[in-house]
């Protein structure tokens, strides 16, 4: 057998070994066997110097060609094998994707607070500021300054918790309106959220509840501004489609006084058996009115120069309506079965 023939033979042996190489390790063995330092082909190349010039040229060319061919075959085979091996590895790593993920548990904000935050965001967007004040309030701020002096019948409408001589748990957030007006000159645009207290307990009354009151005093404010503001708020909280209506009412510190209803955001007044509005089509939402001139005078504002409006709403009740909660008492029990729903 000539050297050239041997080279051809080695090449075809190598190529068939490469073709049947099943793993990256196999192929490495094949490389060592056919192209390694002590491989026969390598030996042949080393011995080229001992050959005649003609042979040298011929053998040199064919051995290099064989090496390159084997190298190329090894390379492409290695790619194939690597791809298959990766595929197998990934298959083996497959997880049950229906198993739950690592928990990043979410907590919950209180439903009344969700409504309060929402209402406050709305008013802040309109340019209002937010004022908060003490829950133990003086008789003067809670009643007298609001046109309810001692002995006034309206005091009996509010079952008051008494704390000490002249101190009460505030029955409303309205005292903050007085405190705000005493502390600054008009224009005033402010909302006052907070806890309020009345001596009352049944499924729709709890001794503590929340109020959000709002107050605007400026030149030229009208009942139309009040209606527009409250209508926009109702649409912000309950959805674009709702309408409002106002009815005459009576509050000590507003004149005229109104109550505002919101059209039922569930049935729009079209379902006589609606669970939310009981078929009335309207939901009582809040009390409001134009600030009584007596209140403006009390805080040193000139009622001829300034007018204003005030409103008060119950975010707990709004949350009850919005989320369909039947019993107000649930709000203040810290029961996780309740809190986790919001």
């Amino acid at each position, binding site marked *: 057998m000539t050297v050239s023939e041997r080279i051809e033979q080695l090449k075809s042996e190598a190529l068939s070994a490469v073709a049947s190489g099943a793993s990256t390790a196999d192929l490495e063995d094949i490389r060592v066997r056919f192209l390694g330092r002590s491989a026969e082909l390598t030996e042949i190349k080393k011995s080229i110097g001992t050959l005649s010039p003609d042979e040298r040229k011929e053998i040199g060319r064919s051995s290099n060609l064989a090496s390159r061919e084997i190298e190329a075959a090894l390379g492409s085979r290695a790619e194939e094998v690597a791809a298959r091996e990766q595929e197998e590895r990934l298959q083996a790593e497959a997880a049950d994707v229906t198993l739950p993920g690592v928990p990043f548990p979410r907590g919950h904000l209180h439903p009344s607070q969700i409504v309060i935050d929402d209402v406050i965001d709305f008013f802040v967007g309109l340019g209002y500021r937010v004022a908060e004040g003490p829950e*133990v309030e003086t008789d003067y701020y809670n009643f007298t300054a609001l046109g309810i002096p001692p002995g006034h019948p309206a005091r009996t409408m509010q079952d008051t918790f008494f704390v000490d001589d002249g101190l009460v748990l505030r029955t409303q957030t309205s005292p903050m309106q007085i405190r705000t007006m005493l502390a600054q000159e008009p224009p005033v645009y402010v909302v006052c959220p907070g806890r309020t207290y009345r001596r009352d307990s049944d499924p729709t009354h709890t001794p503590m509840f929340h109020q959000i009151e709002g107050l605007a005093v400026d030149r030229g404010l009208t009942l139309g501004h009040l209606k527009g503001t409250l209508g926009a708020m109702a649409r912000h909280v309950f959805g674009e489609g709702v309408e409002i209506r106002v009815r005459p009412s009576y509050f000590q510190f507003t004149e005229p006084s109104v109550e505002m209803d919101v059209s039922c955001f569930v049935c729009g007044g079209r379902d006589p058996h609606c669970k939310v509005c009981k078929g009335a089509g309207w939901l009582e939402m809040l009390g409001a009115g134009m600030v009584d001139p007596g209140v403006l005078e009390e805080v040193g504002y000139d009622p001829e120069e300034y007018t204003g409006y005030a409103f008060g709403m119950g975010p707990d009740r709004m949350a009850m309506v919005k989320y369909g909660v039947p019993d107000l008492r649930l709000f203040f029990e810290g029961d996780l079965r309740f809190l986790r729903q919001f």
Partner: protein
Amino acid sequence: MRVPLSWLHEYLDFDLRADELVDLFSLRSQEIDGVYRLGVIEGEVVIGEVVEFGPHPNADRLFVAKVDLGGREVQIVAGAQNPRPGVRVPVVLPGSVMSDGTTLKKAKLRGLESYGMMMSERELGISADHGGILLLDDSHEVGRPVAEYFPVGETVLDIDVTPNRPDLWGMIGVARELAAILKTEYRIPEPSFATGGKPTRDFGLRVEAEDLCPRYDLRRISDLEPGQVAPLWMRRRIYAGGMRPINAIVDATNYVMLETGQPIHAFDAVRVREGIVVRRGRTREKITLLDGSTRVLDEEVLVIADEERGLVIAGLMGAEDAEVGEETTDALIEVATFEGRNILQTSQKLGLRTDASGRFERGLDPNMVAYAMDRVSALLTQAPGGRSADDTLSHYPEPVEPWRVPLRLGRAELLLGMPVQMEEAVERLEALGCEVEREDGELWATVPTFRRDLRREADLVEEVGRLIGLDRVPETLPAVPQTGGLTEGQQRTRLLRRLLADLGLSEAITYPFGPERWTEDLGLEDGTVRLENPLSAEGGHLRTSILPGLLDATARNRAFGARGGALFEVGNVFFADVPQDELREAALRFRMTGERGVQEAGRLMGVREVSRIGVVLGGTVRPAGWNVPEVRAGFFEAKGLVERLVPGARFVPATRPYLHPGRSAAVLAGDKEAGWVGELHPEVAGRFGLDGWPVAALELDTALCQPAPEPRFEPFVNVPAVARDLAVLVEERIPVGDMLRSVRDLPGQLLTEVRVFDVYAGSPVPPGQKSVAFGFTFQGGKTLTDEEVDAEVWRVLSRLEDEFGVRVRS
């Protein structure tokens, strides 16, 4: 105020269904609380004559009647036994609908057919009497519909009258209001009555307490027939109006009260000694009332007395021995006005409220007295056949005159935000009973004295606005000349709440008042603010910590099967801050009048409120998953929260009576104590029903929390950081936090981060020592060489050796 619609129709004509009336009244005047139905809503009720009446053959308690309905005879089974052959009775025919919504059907009762039903007063909506069938007198013609004589069904509106409108506590006032809404006329009965009765002046009248009694009128009605029952039409109106018919005289007074809003009292003249005295009560004077209760009076209670004894607590209730009764033939009728606030105070003091006191306490119009007196005289001279005295004793020293109130149209348009026509305003005010004059584009309304609520221009604006219709006011938005926003503190509170919710906690809102044991069980010193009138003994103390409410909630959750929970609350706590003695008077003046002189308001309030954030972790805070272990409540879970709420906080061991003494710490924010964090003392946990549960908690002043510190950019270079670990042995008592601080405080640092990744005590660590493993990250202005890093680690180690005596763990 209950308004029977058939009665309302007597004063004005209107053609509205009940639901239309409800809408209209709600949108223009007052809220309607409800609509009630009485009697027969729909169908036929005819007058029948009983032909035969006897026991039911198959039932002990039933009877059977043959009734002539005018040309045809029907058989009716009845439960009542009072009909006799020959009496006339109302019979409701099958197919009629009763007030409870049921439809009457032909029925077989114990084998006998029954066609329709003979009706009691209650079934007809006349009274609560259900003792027998209503027997009608011979003036009722057999076979005619009962409705030709009196209504057999009634719709009653219940108006929720606001406190400023005492005029709506009478049917006439309601009629006037509705007429003003509908722009129509209303009419009121013209009283006429028989006179020539015994003179009133046989009795005296002396008003001693003029300040509490602006007007007192007294008239005698004599020659009354004893034992009379009020006519049926009157009884059914009284019943529909929400009261109980009693006897002819009392019913007449109640009827006029429902009609005019003016309460009226009738005395049996025989029992009145000499005359009527209107005076204040005497100290420890006693009076036994109609309801059988004996009340002790004082000088603030107004009493209607004779010369010997108290007869009535004015405006509230009479004594049992001066009232008119079955045998009364001679009556003294009182129509008076009392000072409303005083009546309210007495009512509250005695815990007694009546239809009359509810009207007096709003403050009534003294000018209503004369009409009410004439009306009741007319009614008393009709049915019980009395005769009125020719004279009336009247004490009315300062007659109330109508007053004038201006109304500028421009002002009305400004307040209402809609155009108001002069003609419209005039017409509306006149409909309410005002006389209106025009002067230079201004209106001047002379207000009738029954509208005591109309004193100022704004009051008139409201009247005009609501009668035109507030629905006409367009919705517009004001141009607010300022930017809105939350204060720093408000933003902080909101961020705190959001942060904790994002970390998996649930926001609770609990009552800030609780039982005394809250303080005791937590082992706190008393400094609580107390309520004078708590709802129960369990709610008399204002909280000084958020903790107890959250612990109660946690225990409740546990009782309902929760395996754990994480609650937080942001709210105020309250501390007694009683002003010094010399400030007591100033404090009281400030609280009652707002005047504080030179004092700071805070020193006069008496209560200090602080906003706190509280967290309670209990039981399994996070359950195990298939690939994560469970998280149970413990000190370090709570501390981790504090580290988020107060970045850079320092923790120093501190004991509080309710915390585990070895697993709790005070939280310092800078040099201020921000609050505490720790595991609950097992004893305290037991008292709150949390035995055996791990409970950790924290409470911080919200003002000292910093949930989102202002970011500040620190420059960095783009060369790789190098990490090195180091484990050391140190005496077990050495706080790791001190070691960390010491390392961080090393000057000239390449060290950018240090963390503790392992703490271990026990074999093979020698007893009394622990192994602490630190992970360091070094970063320089250029790539650090191994030698430079080694030098840094050596520096750190020598610091730890010097200060804490550590040895490198080999």
